[in-house]
């Protein structure tokens, strides 16, 4: 029983991080119908920005509340700028081209980033995994029995941040003018432009927002697992993408639910079966969802726009 509870907590902690990354996929897909395969690697870049900031701050400063805020701020803002640049120079020139072209470019950027960051030149981090500096001192918040079940502060913090961001995003999309513009662009960006919506700006902002989210998620991931490496984006990105598809890509709460489900499924498979089974079950689950409910758990299979 205690073991089950612990697995549940671990699974939720893993799931919330997938959720934050999945939200980025879902937003960009929602607006552009583009699966941004470089999203996970943008996250990795954000993590290294946070890593550099934490080191620059030094041991004392980075453990303070202000220090943590600084690390998050630098990583998220830096990553937003990075996302803007990618959109401006890699995706925008291809916007009127067949969708597949942008998809291939995204995969190209993904590999360029994850392998480029392994080069040992100048500020680049090199190939070896690095230990992420402790910016949130791990504390046990809740201990049941003889450490049978342990809840850590970062698990609670991640969950709160993820839920907060999800609610905020839902409000942004459905409750603000910018959100309405986003939805209009998603419906048909040419017509939206004719109606006076600054399409390019909306798309750029969406990319910046999703990249900032990715950086935030990446930092939570780094706090959780302490090891960061240039290849982490490929791995987390793929899982988050699967989560977004399970939930129904383009659907904000769906991405979160899909991610939590995936996190829990993986945790239970590893805990009760074997880790060999983890990816097989996770991707098997994806196939099952697509077979039974092709739009994902929450997605609607919409009629093709004419």
């Amino acid at each position, binding site marked *: 029983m205690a073991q089950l509870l612990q697995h549940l907590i671990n699974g939720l902690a893993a799931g919330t991080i997938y959720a934050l990354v999945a939200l980025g996929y879902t937003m960009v897909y929602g607006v552009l119908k583009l699966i941004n395969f470089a999203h996970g690697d943008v996250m990795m870049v954000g993590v290294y920005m946070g890593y550099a900031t934490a080191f620059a701050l030094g041991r004392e400063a980075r453990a303070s509340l202000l220090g943590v805020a600084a690390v998050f701020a630098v990583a998220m803002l830096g990553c937003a700028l990075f996302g803007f640049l990618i959109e401006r120079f890699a995706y925008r020139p291809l916007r009127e081209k067949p969708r597949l072209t942008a998809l291939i470019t995204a*995969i190209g950027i993904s590999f360029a980033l994850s392998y480029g960051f*392994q080069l040992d030149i100048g500020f680049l981090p090199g190939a070896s995994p690095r230990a992420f500096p402790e910016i949130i001192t791990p504390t046990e918040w809740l201990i049941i029995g003889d450490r049978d079940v342990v809840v850590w502060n970062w698990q609670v913090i991640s969950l709160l941040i993820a839920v907060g961001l999800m609610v905020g995003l839902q409000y942004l999309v459905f409750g603000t003018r910018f959100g309405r513009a986003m939805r209009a662009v998603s419906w048909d960006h040419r017509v939206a432009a004719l109606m006076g919506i600054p399409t390019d700006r909306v798309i750029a902002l969406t990319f910046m927002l999703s990249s900032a989210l990715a950086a935030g998620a990446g930092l939570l991931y780094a706090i959780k697992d302490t090891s960061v490496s240039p290849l982490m984006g490929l791995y987390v990105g793929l899982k988050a993408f699967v989560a977004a598809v399970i939930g129904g890509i383009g659907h904000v709460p769906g991405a979160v639910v899909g991610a939590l489900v995936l996190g829990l499924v993986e*945790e239970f498979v590893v805990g009760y079966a074997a880790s060999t089974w983890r990816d097989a079950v996770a991707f098997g689950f994806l196939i099952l969802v*697509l077979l039974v409910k092709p739009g994902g758990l929450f997605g609607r299979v919409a009629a*093709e726009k004419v």
Partner: protein
Amino acid sequence: MRRLAPMLLAALAIMAAACEKKTQPAPSGEGGAQSPGKASNTGTPPPASADTILLGQVGALSGGQATFGNSQRNGIELAIKEANAAGGVNGKKLAIRVYDNQSKPEEAAQAVTRLITQDKVVLILGDVASSNSLAMADKAQAAGVPMITPSSTNVTVTQKGDYIFRVCFIDPFQGYVMAKFARDDLKLNQVAVLTDNKSAYSIDLANVFKQKFAEMGGKIISEQSYSQGDTDYRAQLTAIKKTQPDGIYVPGYYSEVGVIARQAREVGLKVPLMGGDGWDSATLFELGGSAVEGNYFSNHYSPDNPDPRVQKFIAAYKADYGAVPDALAALGYDAAKVAIEALKRAKDLTGPSVRDAIGQTKDFPGVAGTISLDANRNAVKPAVILKVADGKTQYVTTINP
């Protein structure tokens, strides 16, 4: 939304194609792979000429085993530098061409093919990880180019053929050594095993450990596994914790073990962790922090060894690279030394002559122990047990074959 399914398929197909392509000889794929290192002191690879002997190295310079590959490269470079300073081989200077395999077998196979067909090297050194060496051994054997792996301990590597040698002990021995140490010295009774099921190395060590530990009267109470590249091991560790072991055998590589150690302490496992030479890297201490303290692993050599030969090597290495050499550097150095000695003795520089010369290596004084190659082209050497203490490794004992 109806477009999603075909798009998804297309995406997966492209990703598959992208992965597929890498296994084929890419014309420019190796472009940046040539040792770019700031520590490169053998200079730019000179063109093959009459007064140079060109050796080849394939190493994991990037990816999950990168610190291994770079240590190995440093050791090899040091040996070559010393040999050239001492006049080279029969009046010829030595040069080495290094390719990165990104810690992937398919890249290793491609790189070794390039060394053989394009660069026409007389001998190949590498790789660190057994999975990569296995991919290389097939190619080297088929082409009749001798290959010496400094540190691939998997049994099957040298079984690939009579051109494949190694200067380290083999995996079953390491599994045996740790089982013996766990029973006799640590007095452990029930042990859990956590294996990296993507690594032939880890699986082999774990299998022999399990068998020997049981033969010595111990009990394996839990078997869990993970995959290279994972960073979250809480599920496995939670399951292991439930069985209340006296110790955990984790024969993986440093990039995972550091994190495993940290998370083991986090879930409340206070028992010692044990491992093999895959732990030996400064990155282990960085990733694991204080959590790796008090754990044990088997290794090829200890920098604490007062032998003047070892200390002289350490001093030379420190002067060039500013760090204490790990076992991989020592083995790289030994492998290159064995190769150079063999080239000196060989009748000529053709594959068969070099192979025969390497095979005759007897009582060669390496820094990681004396090297005599047996009929199966394996070195027979003792292993040392090291304990992690104060962010360093501490010599505990030597266990003989």
